[in-house]
C-alpha cells in the first residue's frame, strides 16, 4: 500500500523503487511506516509523508504513523532495478553507482536515455529538482535529466 506511493516530482518512481521506504511494522498502536529523506532539503518529503497517511487511510488499515529515520543515510545505490528502468523509460538517466568523487570539470558522462550515447555534455549540475542535473546529448541533440549519484 505505502510502497505504491509515488515521488510527487518523478511520478514513475514509487517510494519503494526510490529506496525511501525503509520499513513497515504492524505494532500495538497501529501501523508504523519508516521513511528516510533523500536530500536534506527535499521538498517532496512532506508530500510523501502525507500521501502515505492517505494511502493507509484509504485502505482502511487503522491508525498509522510515519517516522522519519536518518540512519543509515539514503543513497541512490538503494534504487531498485525496476526503478532504474522506469527512470530511463521516462527520459531520465538513472544514477551511477556511488559515491561520486569530487572532481572539477571532469564528471562521469551522462548516458542519453533516448539513444544510449555517452557523447554528452553537462549543461547544469543542478536541475529542476534537488536530485537531478541537466545534460545534452551531442548525438541526438536532445536535452535530458540525469538522476544524480548520491
Amino acid at each position, binding site marked *: 500500500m505505502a510502497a505504491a506511493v509515488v515521488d510527487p516530482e518523478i511520478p514513475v518512481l514509487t517510494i519503494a523503487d526510490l529506496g525511501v521506504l525503509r520499513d513497515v511494522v504492524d505494532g500495538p498502536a497501529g501501523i508504523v511506516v519508516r521513511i528516510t*529523506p533523500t*536530500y*536534506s*532539503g*527535499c*521538498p517532496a518529503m512532506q508530500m510523501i509523508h502525507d500521501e502515505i497517511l492517505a494511502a493507509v487511510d484509504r485502505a482502511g488499515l487503522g491508525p498509522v504513523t510515519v517516522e522519519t529515520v*536518518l*540512519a*543509515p*543515510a*539514503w543513497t541512490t545505490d538503494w534504487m531498485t532495478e525496476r526503478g532504474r528502468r522506469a527512470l530511463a523509460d521516462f527520459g531520465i538517466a538513472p544514477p551511477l553507482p*556511488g*559515491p*561520486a568523487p*569530487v*572532481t*572539477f*570539470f571532469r564528471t562521469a558522462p551522462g548516458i542519453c536515455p533516448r539513444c544510449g550515447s555517452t557523447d554528452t555534455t553537462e*549543461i*547544469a*549540475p*543542478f*536541475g*529542476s529538482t*534537488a536530485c537531478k542535473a*541537466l545534460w545534452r546529448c551531442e548525438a541526438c541533440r536532445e536535452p535530458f535529466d540525469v538522476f*544524480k549519484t*548520491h
Partner: protein
Amino acid sequence: MPSGSIVTGDAPLLRYVLERADDALVLGHRLSEWCGHGPMMEEDMALSNMGLDLLGQARALYTYGAAVEGAGRTEDDYAYLRDERAYGNLLLVEQPNGDFAVTMVRQFLYAAFMTPYWQAMTSSTDATLAAIAAKAQKESAYHVRHAGEWVMRLGDGTDESRARAQQALDALWPFTGECFMPSTAEQALVASGAVIDPAMLAAAWRETVARVVADATLTLPADTWMQRGGREGRHGEHLGHLLAELQHLQRSHPGATW
C-alpha cells in the same frame, strides 16, 4: 530583547548543534536572496538548489537540537525566535552576497571546508550527527565542485571577472580562519568523539583551496589577522539585517502558519 525571543540552554551538545545549524541557515538564506536574480536561469536554479540543501541541513540540526534540549521547542523556534547575539554562525557565512564572484568564492571557501568536515563527522559517536553528516557530506561535495568550477572560470576568464574574483578572495580571506577555531562547545565535546576538532582539517582545506586558486590563475592571499567572534555571538552589522528579514513574519505575527 524583541518580544517573543527565546533563550536556550547552554549544554555543549545543544550549543554545538545550533552553531552548525546557524551556519547552514544563514548561508542558505544568503543563497535564497539570489532567487530570481541569478545571471542566467541554470545558475539561478543552482544557487536555489544549494540554498535548499543548506536549509535542509539546518532543519535536521535544529530538529535534533530540540530533541537534545527537551524543552518542547521546534526547529522554527531556534530559527525565528533567537536574537542575533544567540546566533553562533561563522562570520564567513553572514558576509553579504556582493557580486556573483563574492557569492561563489564564499561558497567555495565554505564548501571546501564542510566537505571534509562532514566526511569526518560520519564517524561521530553521536548516531544522529553521523547520519546528518552522511547526507550533508554528499550535498557539500556538489557545492564545492560547482563553486570551485566557477572560481576557476571567473579567475581564468576576462580581466574584469579575474579582478572581481581576486577582490572577493582577498576580502573573504580574513573570515576563513574561524572555520578552524573550535568553539567552546566543540572543545567540550571533542573528547567524547561526538565532534571532531575542526583544526585538524586546516591542511586539507588549504590544499584544495590552493589547487583551485592556482587553476584559476588567482593569487592566494598572504597570511593575515583572522577575524573571529561569530561562534560567541559577536557578529558584524550584516547578520542583524539578515535576521530582520528572516524573522520578520514570526516576530510581527507570532505563531503564524499557512
